[in-house]
């Protein structure tokens, strides 16, 4: 049977997207989580609308970042538990290719999906309306890089019983540049400065990470499984 890499990539991507669609109810949880964190933040800050409004862009960014992090552990764990991961490892298709399909699907479902929570977050946090498109642009770009880092972290911790706090320790420090450039994009817009520089840096970093992460994650999975 002819083995086409493009075919394998599409099949892997379709599988991930179909699974996500079948379990679409699960997506409500991270969605609700972002709103919950925003609510808690607003309550914690108190009735100071000015303070809330000034921090809104960064807080919305962080809410999505944390919600995205929470779903990282699910990247490989269910597949390990039902044996799917072993099939991935013995497949004749190069593992990084399958992982990049998985990364793409994860970003489309979780990254873009959570970015769609932004209008509601903007309402809750009183984000100035003109910052909303910039926030969504920056987030949809930055979540690609965050997903890539998550892929590495999940691959490194999948042999363990639980990712938990260790996964946070591995993944969150690596989020720092993406947070700086992504949230810097929104801050630049708020300050009336051009946003292109920060946005391009976010995009460049995301593409860099998304290109290399499948290879690193493939090495990590093979290390953990042999």
């Amino acid at each position: 049977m002819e083995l086409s890499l493009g075919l394998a990539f599409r099949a892997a991507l379709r599988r991930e997207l179909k699974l996500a669609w079948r379990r679409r109810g699960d997506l409500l949880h991270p969605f609700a989580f972002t709103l919950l964190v925003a609510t808690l933040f607003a309550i914690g800050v108190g009735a100071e609308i000015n303070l809330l409004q000034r921090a809104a862009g960064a807080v919305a960014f962080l809410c999505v970042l944390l919600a995205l992090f929470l779903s990282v552990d699910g990247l490989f764990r269910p597949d390990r538990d039902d044996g799917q991961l072993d099939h991935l490892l013995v497949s004749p298709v190069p593992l990084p290719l399958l992982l990049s399909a998985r990364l793409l699907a994860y970003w489309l479902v979780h990254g873009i999906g959570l970015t769609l929570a932004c209008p509601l977050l903007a309402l809750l946090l009183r984000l100035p309306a003109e910052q909303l498109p910039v926030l969504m642009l920056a987030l949809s770009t930055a979540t690609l890089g965050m997903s890539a880092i998550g892929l590495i972290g999940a691959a490194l911790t999948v042999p363990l019983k639980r990712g938990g706090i260790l996964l946070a320790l591995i993944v969150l420090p690596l989020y720092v540049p993406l947070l700086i450039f992504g949230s810097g994009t929104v801050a630049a817009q708020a300050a009336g400065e051009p946003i292109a520089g920060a946005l391009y840096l976010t995009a460049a970093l995301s593409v860099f990470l998304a290109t290399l992460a499948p290879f690193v994650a493939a090495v990590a999975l093979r290390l953990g499984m042999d």
Partner: protein
Amino acid sequence: MQRFWIWLSRYASPPVFYRTAGLWRPWLGWATLLVGGPALIYGLFFAPPDYLQGESYRIIFIHVPSAWVSMFAYTAMAGAGAAALIWHTKLSEIAVVAIAPIGAGFTAITLVTGMLWGRPTWGAYWVWDARLTSELVLLFLYLGVIGLASAYGDARRGARAAALLSLVGLVNLPIIHYSVRWWNTLHQGSTVRMFGESSIHGSMLWALLAAALAAKLYFVWSLLGRLQLRLLSAESEKAWVARELKLEPSDA
């Protein structure tokens, strides 16, 4: 080149390395004391006070050497990690796990001394200065490597996972460093940015360099000791361990 690899593989073999490290360690220990002791005594008590910062600048004799070692150790750890992943040598796997706590310790010392120095100089223990922030992220990277290495039940697999993570961290460190600098200039245009180094004078410089050398020597001394212990525990079944420790051969 061939001879180099033969030489390297000979010294990377656990029994040879164990014995060689044992020969080197006393010399390194004494060298650390002889270089570091006078440097610290001069720096902390006799060096002239700084014209601007007064006595508080003296902490750089601890702060700056620790900071240098904290970054040097991460590079060394990632180098050992690369060797572990490429050649699967046991010694380099063990080196990754052994370097991490030393590097984390120096990073913590750098942060604490930086905070102590910041209080009189900047008026606050913590300022979101670009260097302090990168150093803090570096500490988290170290903690991640330590945590990952110890979370695996099997020590070798844990060490290899930690090796891979240290390489990922090495690639990300420059990105983190420059992004933090960019962020710092974006948010606070004119932070007080007068690190002691620029205002240093010749009489203090040699003490600082000696302290830095002593910190490096200590790093190697401590590393060799840790490697020895970890080799013993990793190879506890082997005959050379019993010979080395002069244990009675067990009947089992």
